[in-house]
């Protein structure tokens, strides 16, 4: 029942941009559903196996931007075999067949082949933007196809992909007529780059705002490129090894001074001693700094750099900054919202590292902090309680103690109270990762207080099924739960099977669930795909219901069992 003509409603819907809101709008009535679906341009698919490409295209014929996610999160840490799934090819084929006017494709943890990229490049004349995060299966030949055929390409953003590098030729495939580039990120490529082609490409791209280079780009090319693109907003350097007394250095310094728009800086994959002062002129305007791939920047040089970044909102660094360094961050970066501290050498004798002290200092100095990823040697309840008091605005809180079952370093007690304080104080917390020695108690707290929690990562925690049950019962907004090496079994898994339909997915590995438990779940819930990943050579897997399941991944789906499972994946 509409009081306005459809065209007016459509106009109103134009300002409804978030997918969540659009989904809600489409449920109001048949008429709104119809108007909404024809006007929807951006679609986000959090699990590519939850729906089929054909159905997406059928419902949203006006689709212009598609985001797809494939493998579960733990695939980032080698817990999921590479060929598990998440293939792009069927999506591209369906989109091409459906003559969709695709302009933007954003993929995460998908298997992308050169063939798919080639098909993509030829099928969508308005294609503008390709963002690939943690994908694999393609080579620089696929990139060459994109470069050569996507005439209107604005964005090619490759983040942390595993790309087979056939060396340099792809960059020359951008035609001389291509002047539309706004964003180019190839930092994750391992091979050589055609440097003159890069310089020419930058030279003819007046709208270029984002440029992230790989290690193969030397400082003198960087200087030439910056000279042609002083309008850059986001820069990732490649190699930064040069002689501070050289001409190149002076030239580079002079060029950097002119790049007044740079707000985001990253790279420094290799750094020479005393080279960093050349970058100082742009530090005071930086809002984002990523030195997490720059082990060469450490000690006093790093501190000196940080001291100048007074406007920083996002900082990604290595733990070689140490607690003292974090103290400098705390006193300098008053606008800090997001901090990630990565381990610099996970398995060797600890050089500098960070502890609870650094985190407490940050929480005291940076009241706007809302997102944290912190790899540290140790933690205490007292510190976490203090952090919770100082920063009640956490949305994402991910703590990783390198020794996964380490207790409170001072009291030797579990860290339940500390994490409990975090969830109690941070009413808006949406994402949480736990580590350290933890009992069922921490899950009791999470179930009680973490009302907005959407994603929870658990490793080596808990005592019994109660732990998992507290979470499943309490966290009404839970979407993704991933658990490894924890003593949760069938009782927890099967208590409330309907819960999983309200979630995107559940991952459990090295827990206590058995094959029988998983079978029972699959039987009760036909709208779930319950997948068992078995990598051992035993062919007799599947006979003994009492056997513990090594890896289980379940997710809700509208299209039933997928047909592209490899040998080692068994959908119950």
């Amino acid at each position: 029942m509409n009081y306005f003509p459809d065209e007016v409603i459509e106009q109103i819907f134009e300002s409804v941009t978030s997918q969540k809101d659009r989904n809600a709008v489409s449920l109001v009535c048949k008429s709104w559903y119809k108007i909404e679906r024809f006007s929807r341009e951006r679609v986000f698919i959090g699990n590519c196996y939850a729906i089929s490409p054909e159905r997406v295209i059928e419902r949203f014929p006006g689709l212009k931007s598609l985001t797809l996610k494939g493998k579960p999160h733990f695939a980032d840490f080698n817990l999921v075999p590479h060929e598990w799934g998440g293939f792009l090819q069927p999506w591209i084929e369906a989109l091409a067949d459906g003559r969709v006017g695709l302009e933007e494709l954003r993929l995460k943890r998908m298997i992308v082949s050169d063939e798919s990229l080639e098909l993509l490049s030829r099928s969508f004349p308005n294609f503008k933007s390709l963002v690939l995060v943690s994908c694999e299966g393609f080579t620089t030949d696929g990139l060459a196809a994109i470069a050569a055929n996507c005439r209107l390409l604005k964005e090619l953003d490759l983040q942390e992909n595993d790309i087979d590098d056939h060396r340099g030729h792809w960059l020359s495939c951008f035609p001389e007529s291509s002047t539309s580039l706004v964003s180019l990120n190839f930092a994750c490529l391992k091979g050589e780059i055609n440097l003159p082609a890069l310089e020419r490409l930058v030279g003819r791209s007046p709208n270029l705002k984002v440029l992230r280079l790989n290690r193969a780009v030397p400082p003198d090319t960087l200087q030439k490129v910056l000279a042609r693109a002083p309008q850059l907003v986001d820069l990732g350097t490649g190699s930064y090894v040069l002689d501070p007394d050289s001409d190149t250095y002076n030239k580079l310094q002079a060029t950097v001074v002119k790049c007044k728009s740079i707000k985001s800086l990253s790279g420094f994959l290799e750094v020479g001693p005393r080279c960093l002062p050349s970058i100082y002129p742009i530090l005071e305007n930086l809002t984002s700094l990523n030195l997490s791939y720059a082990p060469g920047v450490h000690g006093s040089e790093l501190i000196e750099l940080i001291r100048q970044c007074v406007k920083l909102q996002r900082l990604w660094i290595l733990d070689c900054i140490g607690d003292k360094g974090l103290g400098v961050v705390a006193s300098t970066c008053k606008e800090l919202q997001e901090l990630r501290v990565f381990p610099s050498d996970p398995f060797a004798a600890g050089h500098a590292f960070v502890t609870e002290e650094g985190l407490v200092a940050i929480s005291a100095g940076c009241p706007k902090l809302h997102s944290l990823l912190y790899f540290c040697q140790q933690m205490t309840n007292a510190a976490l309680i203090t952090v919770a008091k100082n920063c009640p605005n956490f949305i994402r809180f991910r703590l990783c103690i390198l020794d996964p079952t380490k207790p409170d370093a001072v009291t030797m007690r579990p860290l339940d109270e500390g994490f409990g304080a975090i969830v109690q104080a941070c009413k808006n917390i949406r994402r949480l990762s736990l580590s350290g020695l933890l009992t069922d108690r921490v899950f009791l707290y999470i179930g009680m207080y973490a009302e907005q929690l959407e994603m929870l990562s658990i490793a080596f925690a808990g005592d019994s099924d109660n732990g998992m049950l507290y979470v499943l019962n309490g966290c009404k907004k839970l979407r993704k739960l991933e658990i490894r090496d924890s003593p949760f079994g069938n009782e927890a898994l099967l208590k409330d099977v309907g819960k999983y339909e309200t979630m995107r997915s559940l991952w459990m590995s090295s827990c206590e669930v058995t094959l029988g438990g998983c079978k029972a779940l699959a039987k009760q819930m036909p709208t779930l795909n319950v997948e068992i990943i078995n990598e051992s050579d035993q062919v007799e897997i599947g006979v003994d219901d009492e056997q513990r399941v090594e890896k289980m991944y379940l997710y809700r789906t509208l299209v039933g069992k997928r047909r592209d499972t490899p040998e080692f994946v068994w959908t119950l």
Partner: protein
Amino acid sequence: MSLENKQQQPPAGLNYDETKLTLGLPGSGSKRGFSETVDISFGSSSSSSSGAGVECCGQYSVVDGGDKTHKAPAAKAQLVGWPPVRVSRKNLMKSCKYVKVAVDGAPYLRKVDLEMYNSYQQLLGALEDMFSFLTIRNYLNESKLMDPANGVEYVPTYEDRDDDWMLVGDVPWKMFVETCKRLRLMKSSEAIGLAPRTPPQCTSTH
């Protein structure tokens, strides 16, 4: 400059020896090994210091450095997928320390990655593989590299960060890896007066 003796209770698991004040090479501080902060139960020997009795049923891969002698499990045991960092970061972080190896009389140099080994013994083994004319000869409790064809003995030496040439084997392995810039297998005949009568323990693993 006074030497202060700090009477602090070290965190659990910290080896006092590592914090002892010694005349060490610059840059070689005392470092806590990861193995000393690992408290998880491997299901057999060591028990975790927690009282909660969490049993870890995860996957472990003990990285075997190829040492022929049995090594304690704490040395380089690694959990699969832990710490949770992306492969691209792990690859970056994997320390690799390639140094040149010169052997007196050999026409060209080679390079070895010192991070691949856990002990002097393993390093000698790698050198033996790399330079085929060399073999390790064990006399009593000492290992030497020699060319069996002509009985020539080689003394392993290295250049440290101060540009001094040192005898391999004096310092703990990890310290050696930190400070070694290049290796030279010197003919014993040239090392007259330098080669010790009581050679250092080349099999030390700490």
